[in-house]
């Protein structure tokens, strides 16, 4: 290719008067953007390699660097926008499917931002979480339809297995392989410290992390990588992954370059071989097949572990959820279309699926209408960004939320969306040992614990404002929500009134 059609996406702005040529930027850039020129004693940059991960900016001790969007532009065209044109060039160059990472960045509506939360005034006192108990614990799992009594009339306290969470948030699935050992260690330790769960994703469970089993969800996905009896029994729950919000309807592909050492051992596949998860589970072509897998897993775990079925939010999600609720699954996890990924075809990520807010509202309402909401707990993910998103999700009807993007952000991710390259400068989405060590799990754990502790405080404040002192009383409490700037159809689906009503 003699002509480069695409100009560099970013500009590296180095303030020469601030740069002390300490070369931290050079040493920290796995994309090799920065180089020290010994002849002139100054740092030079190759901007074409920059992905705007902000590692150099964050570590520069004199704040001499900034990365800005390249102002260079194609001639303005509302139809053929810059990104669209660039994608054409890229495909004309490569002949390949475009790949991207993390969640859908397109300007689709974010319903969380169009929902407002209530607070108590006069007729009902707000509760001060600093003075009064404020409970955020939840139990996930099937609730019995009918209480049973023994011959003396005493309640028989029998329950199918439940998951206890100290707050209604869990770390959602990210496989060891797609993310690093240290990222997994951070998630596992943080989950343990926080009294919540993290999720292995479809990468198996590294032997070092079996000790975090009580705080682990082990995933079984279409590739069945790393699945064996001990694995299934190692966690607190088993999750069947049917789909993922970022790429509904397609499988996964972890390139062989990431299948090295422990990753290959943990996945139980040869080093260097691509890990390809098929689009469907080839033993599940319909709902009755799912039921069989649910019960196979329950058999394998002696009915001691709740089974989660994770699906992507797609158009008929309510009906799908209804089917799953009757499949024997204990928990349904729904992943909205803004959920992240380590790698997905761009077209799929940006165009397939529906927002989690609408999916959640529809599913919760549908299950209640069918009287089977108690059969399952609902966990939602796909861009839960903050404590108020959690509160809104719970009030819409979720039992708990899954977070992953927020978690990796806490670990240092700057959403450069190039996970697929395996050169993550923050030591998260990489298997290169020199990069992996950049994430000290001690710090990672602390930051995750900090994040969720902060969220917990905020959740309590918001609950207290509503006069609610236990999260159970918030679940499905849609009266606590009002829409803003939503049309009547959207309000109807969300099951909430408009602000002012």
């Amino acid at each position, binding site marked *: 290719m003699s002509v480069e059609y695409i100009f560099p996406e970013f500009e590296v702005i180095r303030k020469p008067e601030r740069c002390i040529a300490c070369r931290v930027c050079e040493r920290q850039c796995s994309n090799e953007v920065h180089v020290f020129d010994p002849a002139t004693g100054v740092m030079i940059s190759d901007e074409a390699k920059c992905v705007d991960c902000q590692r150099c900016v964050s570590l520069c001790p004199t704040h001499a660097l900034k990365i800005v969007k390249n102002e260079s532009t194609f001639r303005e065209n509302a139809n053929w926008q810059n990104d669209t044109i660039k994608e054409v060039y890229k495909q004309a160059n490569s002949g390949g499917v475009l790949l991207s990472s993390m969640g859908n960045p397109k300007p689709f509506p974010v319903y969380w931002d169009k929902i407002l939360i209530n607070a108590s005034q006069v007729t009902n006192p707000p509760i001060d979480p600093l003075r009064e108990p404020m409970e955020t614990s939840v139990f996930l799992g099937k609730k*019995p339809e009918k209480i049973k009594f023994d011959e003396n009339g005493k*309640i028989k306290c029998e329950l199918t297995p439940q998951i206890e969470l100290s707050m209604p948030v869990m770390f959602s699935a990210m496989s060891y392989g797609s993310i690093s050992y240290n990222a997994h260690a951070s998630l596992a330790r943080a989950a343990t410290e926080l009294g919540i769960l993290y999720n292995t994703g479809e990468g198996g469970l590294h032997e070092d992390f079996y000790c975090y089993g009580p705080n682990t969800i082990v995933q079984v996905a279409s590739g069945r990588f790393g699945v064996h009896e001990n694995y299934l029994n190692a966690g607190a729950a088993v999750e069947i992954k049917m789909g993922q919000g970022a790429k509904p309807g397609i499988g996964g592909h972890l390139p062989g370059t990431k299948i090295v050492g422990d990753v290959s051992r943990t996945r139980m596949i040869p080093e260097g071989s691509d890990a390809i998860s098929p689009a469907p589970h080839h033993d599940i072509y319909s709902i009755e097949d799912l039921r069989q897998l649910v019960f196979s897993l329950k058999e394998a775990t002696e009915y001691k572990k709740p089974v989660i079925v994770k699906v992507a939010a797609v158009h008929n999600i309510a009906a799908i959820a209804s089917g799953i609720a009757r499949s024997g699954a204990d928990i349904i996890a729904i992943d909205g279309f803004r959920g992240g990924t380590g790698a997905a075809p761009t077209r799929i990520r940006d165009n397939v699926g529906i927002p989690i807010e609408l999916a959640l509202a529809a599913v919760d309402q549908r299950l209640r209408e069918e*009287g089977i*909401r108690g059969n399952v707990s609902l966990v939602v993910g796909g861009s839960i960004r903050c404590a108020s998103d959690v509160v809104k999700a719970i009030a819409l009807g979720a039992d708990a939320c899954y977070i992953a993007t927020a978690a990796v952000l806490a670990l240092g991710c700057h959403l450069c969306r190039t996970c697929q390259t395996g050169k993550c400068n923050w030591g998260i989405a990489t298997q290169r040992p020199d990069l992996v060590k950049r994430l000290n799990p001690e710090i990672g754990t602390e930051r995750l614990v900090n994040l969720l502790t902060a969220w917990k405080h905020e959740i309590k404040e918001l609950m207290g404002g509503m006069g609610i002192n*236990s999260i159970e009383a*918030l679940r499905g409490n849609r009266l606590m929500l009002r829409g803003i700037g939503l049309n009547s159809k959207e309000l109807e689906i969300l099951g909430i009134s408009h602000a002012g009503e």
Partner: protein
Amino acid sequence: MKTEGQIRIPSGCAIAAVISKEGKKMSGEAITNSMRPMHDRSNGLGGGFAGYGIYPDYKEFYALHMFFDDRTTRKETETFLKERFEIVKSEIIPTRKMPAITNEPLIWRYFVAPLKSVLDRMQLDEREFVARTVMKINSEMKGAFVFSSGKNMGAFKAVGFPEDVGEFYRLEEYEGYSWTAHGRYPTNTPGWWGGAHPFTLLDYSIVHNGEISSYDANRRYIEMFGYKCTLQTDTEVITYIMDYLIRVQGLSPRDAANVIAAPFWETIDKTSDPAEKERLMYLRKVFPSLLITGPFSIVFGYKGGLMALNDRLKLRSMVVGEKDDMTYIASEEAAIRVMEPNVDKIWAPAGGEPVIINVKDGVSL
């Protein structure tokens, strides 16, 4: 302007109740008078009473107390009732004309027994059948409203101050072993007769002071089991919850109290008796959506007993007094003193701790 049932109406209130453990009958006069010192806790937009043991002659029949907007509705409703019940008696509930109570609807009562053939056809037990019928009338038959449906008990309610409502319904002419009373202070509505308390279903009645923050969580859960919260009031949803837990699930009033005002997890953890701990934990895990938060003080009336309960933080006042076989419950001590000036013992129950008073075993009700 949206009216009751179209919008949720928060309200402050006064409550009072009395019961004789010996099952001794008392007239409705004392309970009516008990509301007088708490006049300022109501605003004239709702008052009501429930009396237990007041229809000894018809105690085998469900006493349906009903409001009708007009005669046509009444006729239609009666036709509907006749398809399902044997009506042994129907009459206008006697009232006293008084200036403080106006705009009254048609107020009737029917003593009924479900038709056996209908029960068999629907494969329902009698109480479930009655409850469903009440739900159907209240949600589907415009202008008709069943405000009492138990056996040997009845609710009496109206828009007005409770002491006036008592006089209006001539409560001094009824004799019951337990009574509950309510004065209402709704904040943004003209008030509606059906919206006054007590709210009842079968022989369960609730008088409630408070505004629960868990309302929609509770409502959306309980509606899964055939209940329709047409009034959007706390009292209504609490009544249905109590009906569901006690009648449908078979729990005791105490169990039910431990569901709706469940002890904090911390308290459960500290419970020393393992069986008790297991029970509390179980109830909380199984019925998380029936936990009621926000301020409330309620008196739950049922055949042969009363249960008083505050929310877990005790965000509303409620005192209990005792004298001989009598137990008194009220928002304010003054109300108890009106009924029994020489009360022996008086205390404020802790938040979430139910006070349950049952008529002694063996007393015929």
